[in-house]
């Protein structure tokens, strides 16, 4: 119990110990209670020697019991309060009388707080004092509040009493200095030009300091107060010694020279936001304002602003009225020009002067209004209040103000703020009352409109049912516009009828009659307004001849209505959602104020209706979407690449077989992606990070071992913050893929035939391939016959030729077996073409196949590629062939990504080169040249024509086609053709090409 009630150093007193034992709860509980008391408790011996401190005491002071026992010298009591406390304490100890005193104590952090200290003696039965008990209650907050209240009242009294501004501000500074221990206060004012500081008050600061501040320019450099006034914001300098601001004006050295170490400057602003001056608090130590300090500052700057502002306006009014007395003729016009109703009254309250605007407004002459005649123009509801308030004000002799409605000559009423100020003579007697009535009708209306709008918008925002909002809206308009009745009608979802929505004060029979009226111009003003999308005013229903067919006017008249203003409520897209209608029981035409009001409330109604309908539509479309996603096995997702935030639809979770409770991450997705397709996923992420749209087919490996095929498509959009967000769809195409794969053999054959069919050069090739062996057969057979017919027959020669015949026959048969398709002729066209564009077309056509084969394609097409001349289709056949070969070469690769790079670039000698690089099985040591032989193939189902024909095509373009193994896995095939024009040889390019193609194939056939 180091820090608790047990921290006593006193000798055990047998009697005290006995008392403690007498407590039924026992020693420990006694100490517990003592430590738990929300106040500081100290006990002392009868002689006044402090003995025991409860836990809050030790916590508050942050000192040891020894230091606390030396309280008279250990600095825990505020120096100003110490002598008095010692005096009272000493008297109490010597007389045994309790004391009761407030003084400041130093908290562990150096902050002084006011305490209410009470000392009570505990006596033995013989009257001897056994102990003293001190209870210290922290009254800082209460004192501050009291001081504030008292100060405020005092200052406001001074303001009201017309005390001069320097005196008020002096007092204000003193009150703050009293409240905030150790502070020095000042007020500086901004001069009439708004450019310089002038002295306001600083009762405790050195005059040299005040002099140094006066006249400083209002800017950020000349000092904290100037800066606060300039920026209209608080400027805090917690330690002037380490401050770097205001160096240009050497403010800090000046302040330090006066012993000041911290300064808090706060601007004093008028109600209109104009900066009037600055209020500053200084300390001789570095200090940061606490919350309590800020409250104090806030309150006092507020009072200062009232004082300064009031003084200034009062001064101008008094001046004007004083001048009026001396120079009635000229100044009367000035008074009359004041935008308010100016009056003066005798000390007994009888009005003896009213400005012309008063008479103009009320339509009552000066004579009639004099004395108490003016009271007749008061609104009846306000008359009673004012007739009691006015005499009490007169009796108090204090300035006062009052809000009341005065009747306009046209019968309408407007709100005024009536201010009355007494004028005293030298002896303090009131000699006159001056008054100014300011028209506050617009402000009042604006306030109440604003409050109403705010409430309605809050209802909209909090999703209050539409009917309640509209009903409230009607009631509010009825309360704002006297004697009117409001209703709101909606256009029904089929847009054929009007639906009653709200009309809280209209007869139920009327609402029922309007509900369900057809949306045609003839059915009534509201329907007309919807149909024409414009306001319809029926200023006097009894005279109106419209809507006869539906007898709308008689119906309205029967319900006591004489005027109707129907205004369409339109959506943001311009569609009419409904009607806001105002009715009167008298003929009426809307004023511009009415129109403004109608405009505001139809706007609010449109927000409410649109929001309600939008929410309903959203709920519907959400439900539809969920259903559609489920039916089509399509999920949707969004992905913010920068933050990695991924959102999935319900169906997307279902497709991945994951719980919707899980947050979606790339890791989570990766856990489901088929291991062989992980490189595809990485490629996709890379594409997304580069901001490209993407489309992929990949597989999922489900926990049950099954495989799902997904087709994914994503489109990137850039939001207002410049962040890319992908919106995409992911479809489960497993069923489709399975049936597709079942057909794949059929299709690949068809595709193969189609591939070969499209090659014009093959027509010639086939005839050639077949005719060559046939030629051999016939020649050999002829030779054979001749050898056998010779005398003697050349048997050996005949056998050899017969064997050759069989070999050539087999070869021809092989050709026929392989050539299962007919080849059609195709025109060869030579044209200038962009190889990049041709490549892109092929890539676009192949992309799905490549993705299906899980090949990652990268295109590196040179930007500055010159055009070439040639046959676009043939060159594209070559590119397609190279892509397919590359893709096929990677079909069996499982241990590395199947990467395919297609590249175009300038080559030497004015050539253009295209390269296709794969990571497939490579060339495997076979003769590279052999690759280009017709019918040479490493593929089980290939015809082997592709590369041979490709080489022919390229050579016909005066180029060359070659293959090379990669450094790593795979092979690279390239062709290089000269840039155009005139790339294709021969005037008769058709014939020339054919011939060359044949030439090539012939050579191959010759080397079986």
């Amino acid at each position: 119990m180091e820090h608790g009630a047990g921290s006593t150093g006193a000798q055990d007193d047998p009697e005290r110990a006995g008392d403690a034992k007498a407590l039924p709860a026992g020693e420990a509980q006694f100490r517990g209670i003592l430590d738990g008391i929300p106040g500081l408790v100290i006990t002392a011996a009868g002689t006044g020697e402090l003995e025991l401190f409860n836990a809050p005491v030790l916590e508050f002071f942050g000192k040891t019991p020894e230091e606390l026992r030396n309280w008279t010298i250990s600095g825990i009591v505020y120096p100003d309060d110490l002598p008095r406390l010692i005096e009272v304490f000493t008297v109490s100890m010597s007389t045994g009388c309790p004391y009761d005193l407030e003084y400041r104590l130093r908290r562990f952090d150096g902050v002084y707080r006011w305490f209410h200290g009470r000392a009570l003696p505990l006596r033995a039965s013989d009257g001897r004092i056994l102990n003293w008990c001190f209870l210290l209650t922290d009254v800082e907050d209460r004192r501050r509040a009291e001081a504030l209240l008292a100060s405020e009242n005092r200052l406001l009294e001074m303001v009201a009493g017309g005390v001069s501004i320097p005196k008020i501000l002096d007092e204000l500074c003193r009150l703050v200095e009293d409240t905030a221990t150790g502070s020095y206060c000042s007020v500086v004012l901004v001069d009439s030009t708004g450019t310089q500081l002038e002295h306001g008050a600083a009762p405790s600061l050195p005059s040299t300091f005040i002099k140094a501040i006066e006249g400083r320019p209002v800017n950020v450099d000349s000092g904290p107060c100037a800066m606060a006034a300039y920026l209209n914001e608080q400027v805090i300098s917690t330690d002037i010694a380490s401050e770097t601001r205001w160096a240009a004006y050497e403010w800090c050295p000046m302040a330090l020279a006066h012993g000041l170490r911290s300064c808090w400057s706060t601007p004093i602003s008028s109600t209109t936001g104009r900066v009037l001056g600055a209020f500053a608090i200084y300390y001789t130590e570095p200090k940061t304002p606490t919350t309590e300090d800020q409250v104090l500052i806030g309150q006092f700057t507020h009072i200062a602003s009232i004082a300064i502002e009031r003084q200034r306006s009062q001064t101008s009014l008094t001046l004007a009225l004083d001048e009026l007395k001396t120079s009635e003729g000229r100044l009367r016009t000035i008074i009359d020009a004041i935008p308010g109703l100016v009056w003066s009254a005798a000390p007994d309250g009888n009005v003896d002067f009213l400005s012309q605007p008063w008479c103009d407004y009320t339509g009552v002459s000066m004579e009639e209004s004099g004395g108490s005649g003016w009271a007749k123009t008061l609104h009846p509801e306000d008359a009673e209040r004012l007739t009691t308030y006015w005499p009490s004000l007169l009796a108090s002799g204090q300035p006062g103000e009052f809000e009341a409605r005065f009747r306009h000559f046209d019968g309408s009423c407007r709100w005024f703020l009536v201010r009355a100020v007494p004028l005293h003579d030298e002896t303090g007697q009131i000699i006159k009352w001056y008054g100014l009535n300011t028209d506050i009708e617009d402000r009042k209306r604006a306030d109440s409109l604003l409050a109403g709008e705010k409430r309605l918008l809050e209802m909209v925002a909090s999703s209050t049912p539409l009917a309640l909002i509209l009903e409230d809206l009607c009631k509010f308009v009825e309360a704002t516009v006297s004697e009117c009745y409001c209703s709101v009608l909606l256009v029904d979802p089929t847009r054929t009828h009007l639906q009653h929505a709200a009309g809280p004060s209209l007869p139920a029979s009327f609402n029922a009659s309007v509900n369900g009226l057809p949306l045609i111009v003839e059915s009534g003003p509201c329907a007309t307004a919807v149909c024409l999308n414009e306001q319809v005013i029926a200023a006097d229903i009894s005279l109106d001849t419209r809507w006869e067919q539906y007898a709308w006017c008689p119906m309205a008249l029967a319900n006591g209505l004489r005027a109707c203003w129907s205004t369409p409520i339109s959506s943001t897209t311009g569609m009419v959602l409904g009607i806001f209608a105002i009715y009167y029981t008298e003929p009426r035409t809307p004023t511009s104020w009415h129109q403004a009001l109608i405009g505001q409330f139809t706007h609010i109604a449109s927000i409410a209706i649109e929001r309600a309908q939008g929410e309903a539509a959203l709920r519907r479309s959400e439900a539809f979407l969920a259903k559609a996603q489920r039916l089509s096995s399509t999920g949707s997702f969004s992905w913010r690449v920068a933050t990695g935030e991924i959102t999935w639809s319900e169906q997307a979770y279902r497709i991945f077989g994951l719980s919707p409770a899980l947050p979606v991450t790339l890791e989570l997705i990766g856990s489901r992606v088929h291991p062989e397709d992980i490189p595809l996923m990485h490629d996709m992420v890379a594409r997304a990070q580069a901001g490209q749209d993407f489309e992929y087919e990949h597989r999922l490996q489900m926990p049950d071992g099954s495989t799902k095929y997904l087709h994914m498509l994503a489109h990137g959009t850039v939001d207002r913050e410049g962040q890319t967000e992908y919106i995409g769809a992911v479809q489960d195409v497993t069923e489709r893929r399975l049936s597709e794969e079942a057909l794949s053999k059929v299709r690949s054959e068809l595709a193969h035939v189609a591939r070969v069919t499209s090659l014009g050069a093959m027509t010639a090739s086939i005839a050639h391939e077949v005719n060559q062996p046939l030629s051999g057969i016939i020649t050999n057979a002829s030779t054979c016959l001749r050898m056998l017919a010779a005398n003697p027959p050349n048997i050996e020669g005949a056998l050899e030729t017969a064997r050759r015949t069989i070999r050539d026959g087999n070869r021809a048969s092989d050709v026929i077996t392989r050539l299962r398709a007919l080849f059609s002729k195709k025109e060869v066209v030579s044209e200038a073409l962009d190889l990049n564009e041709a490549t892109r077309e092929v890539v676009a056509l192949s992309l799905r196949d490549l993705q299906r084969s899980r090949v990652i394609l990268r295109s590196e097409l040179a930007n500055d590629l010159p055009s070439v001349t040639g046959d676009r289709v043939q060159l594209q056949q070559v590119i397609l062939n190279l892509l397919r070969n590359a893709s096929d070469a990677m079909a069996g690769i499982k241990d590395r990504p199947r990467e395919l790079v297609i590249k175009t670039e300038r080559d030497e000698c004015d050539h253009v080169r295209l390269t296709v690089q794969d990571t497939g099985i490579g060339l495997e040591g076979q003769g590279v040249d052999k690759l280009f032989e017709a019918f040479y193939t490493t593929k089980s189902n290939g015809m082997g024509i592709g590369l041979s024909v490709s080489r022919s095509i390229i050579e016909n373009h005066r180029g060359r086609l070659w293959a090379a193994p990669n450094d790593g896995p795979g092979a690279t095939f390239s062709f290089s053709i000269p840039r155009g024009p005139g790339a294709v040889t021969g005037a008769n390019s058709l014939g020339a090409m054919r011939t060359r193609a044949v030439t090539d194939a012939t050579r191959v056939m010759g080397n079986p």
Partner: protein
Amino acid sequence: MPICSLVSVVDDDESVRESLPDLLKEFGFTVQAFSSAEEFLASDCVTQTKCLILDIAMPGMTGPDLQQELIRRRQDIPIVFITAHGEDNVRPRMLKEGAVECLFKPFSEAALLTALNTALQLNELN
């Protein structure tokens, strides 16, 4: 008809170079086979050859190219073109260019013999 007239065969197809000389020998000719026009031009058979059986489509110098070269060298050798390319317009073109005959593979023994005889008669006229 001198029995040992030299007939040269120029064809890049090996099966032709294999089978055709044997048949020609059975006819009684002396035969030399070349796999390209260049090889033939480089040989010492150019002046000896009484008839040239020449493939049209070959890599490098084609049959018609060789024909033009021989005309340029004033080597007036009768030429029988052979081709596996059965296009109708080839034969008239070749005959117009001065060929003795143009045979489409596969050709018959009789057609070959007729062409050779025509060629050798031309030789004798010369």
